[in-house]
């Protein structure tokens, strides 16, 4: 009898499993379809796209659209391609991510291990900044950037992204360090280590997972930001996202869809690479924070 019931369990298991996989497959295709369309059409000549079948594989394979998008396409008034803006984005993203992560780590360290009266309120206010819509701060931020003489510069954008990212990075590190044993801090205090020494020698070496989480989060957010880039950047400091918009909306006669697709993939590539390289650490880091905190 037990053998029979085991058999039925096995059979229903197989059916249910097949169904689950089928559904998962459908969803996977559904999600991957846009990427597929972009990839396929970015390597076709324009004529092939005009024939109307977006899902077909290219008959004539060409990387011309990629070269166009990268170095020759018309962005606004200049035929520079996306290259200078890609560099603008990098120059903006890298310092913004490093600074906001570092400051978030120090904030989290202070808010958990060097608590002062009112630390809850300070943390509450920082959390609040996570929920303020971007649009609300546009005008005050423009004013502040003007006063600091940073309007239209990459430094200005870095500042904006650091300020805006601080709420999240602080939240991540605070929750992570909250679970960090306070006895370790006490032991290090007795051993004679000061504020920054404890941070650098005891906490930072154990912060790998949460640093990965924060870096991915900040990198994607800052890289993908369009609103601040469009609002606060000049022509020579515009990030990739703004340039992509300009590429797509610049009209020089025909719409070069293949170039637009290639440009869009170029714009998404860095975040894609960051996810592929460190995605599993991202999940692990989030879990570590969740379980301990």
């Amino acid at each position, binding site marked *: 009898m037990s053998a029979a019931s085991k058999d039925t369990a096995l059979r229903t298991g197989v059916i249910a499993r097949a169904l689950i996989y089928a559904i998962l497959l459908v969803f996977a295709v559904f999600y991957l379809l846009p990427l597929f369309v972009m990839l396929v059409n970015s390597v076709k000549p324009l004529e092939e796209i005009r024939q109307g079948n977006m899902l077909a594989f290219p008959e004539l394979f060409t990387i011309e659209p990629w070269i166009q998008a990268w170095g020759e396409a018309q962005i606004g008034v200049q035929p520079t391609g996306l290259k200078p803006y890609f560099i603008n984005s990098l120059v903006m993203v890298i310092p913004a991510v490093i600074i906001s992560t570092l400051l978030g780590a120090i904030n989290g360290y202070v808010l958990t291990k060097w608590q002062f009266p009112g630390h809850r309120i300070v943390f509450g206010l920082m959390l609040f900044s996570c929920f303020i819509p971007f649009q609300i701060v546009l005008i005050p931020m423009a004013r502040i950037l003007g006063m600091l003489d940073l309007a239209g510069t990459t430094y200005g954008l870095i500042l904006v992204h650091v300020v805006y990212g601080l709420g999240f990075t602080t939240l991540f590190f605070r929750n992570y360090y909250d679970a960090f*044993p306070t*006895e*370790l801090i006490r032991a*290090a205090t*007795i*051993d004679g280590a000061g504020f920054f020494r404890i941070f650098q*020698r*005891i906490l930072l*070496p154990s912060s790998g997972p949460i640093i990965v989480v924060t870096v991915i989060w900040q990198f994607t957010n800052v890289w993908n930001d369009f609103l601040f880039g469009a609002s606060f950047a000049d022509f020579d400091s515009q990030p990739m996202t703004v340039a992509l918009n300009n590429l797509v909306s610049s009209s020089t006669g025909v719409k070069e869809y293949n170039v637009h697709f290639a440009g869009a993939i170029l714009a998404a590539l860095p975040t894609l690479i960051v996810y592929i390289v460190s995605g599993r650490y991202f999940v692990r880091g989030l879990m570590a924070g969740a379980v301990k905190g």
Partner: protein
Amino acid sequence: MAFLEINRLHKQYGNVEVLKGVDIAIEEGGFLVLVGPSGCGKSTLLNSIAGLESITSGEIAIDGKVVNDLHPSKRDIAMVFQSYALYPSMSVAENIAFGLEMRGVSKAEREEAIQGVAGMLQIEHLLKRRPGQLSGGQRQRVAMGRALVRDPKLFLFDEPLSNLDAKLRVDMRTEIKRLHQKLGTTIVYVTHDQIEAMTLATQIAVLKDGILQQVGSPDEVYSKPANMFVADFMGSPTMNLIEARIENGSGALSVEIPQRDRSLSLPVPRPPSSLQSYSGKSVVLGIRPEDITDPDGADPKAEHIAHANCSVEVVEPTGADTFVVTQLGGKEVTGRMRNAAGLSVGADVPFAFNMGKIHFFDPATEQRIA
């Protein structure tokens, strides 16, 4: 002046007073154990000595120097934590040497110090490992090594054995005692385990609700508990505390324990001087389980043995001894019998009371009647 002196120490968290005027002193080379139930303030007291928590008022002096406002790292102390608090990203050697490194000791000297301590604690083979790769007992040793390597004036131990399993705990206890005897250092040790307190201490301080109940040698605390709390807390199984009356019959005092049918009267051979004033009044009689035995197992040197028959309610063999529970004065009373043969539940058997080792407490103040 004592090596470590704590005078009228108060500590408040908001409106809650955790330490209510603690006075303790210990000589150089002494082993002071702070013992008490959880929440009694013993860890707060230790952290105050370490400087990890500020004090509200009072004075702490180490080796004649008031350290109230001194940073923990400047007090010349080392601490072993309950969770061991080993730095997870450093190797064992780096952990041990971290305090020296922070104090700017040269690499060569550090290396030598590590080797010395590792040899003493037999952890040479672990030096390259990370704390995560060590067992509980090994972590404990490393934590002690980290404290020992700095050769401080004062060692502080915060329940260092409570995370170890029972067998290892006994081994490490012996080891700590051996180290103390060998090095002659001054130690303040916090525990809630009264057996650890008895075995390790040269001085025991019993705390309850932030108030010091008694300070004394293990023998003093055990054989002359200052009040009912100390009597109850120290010793396992705990002291029997029985409500009774003092009767003054023709010059000799006796203690009457009310029983269901007739009260049990036991003579008091050497009454404490102020017991006289309690004649006719109720007191609390304290007697330890090892002083209630079978007649054959009674201490042959005891001069005042009283015998009485009591009915057996529960028999708990432990191997070496058998604990027998009976009723006296409406309370469960535990006796320790060497010979368990012939004990059956419900039987009336003779018990021997060592009346030379009884204690009296005032039922209202709970203080010892001396």
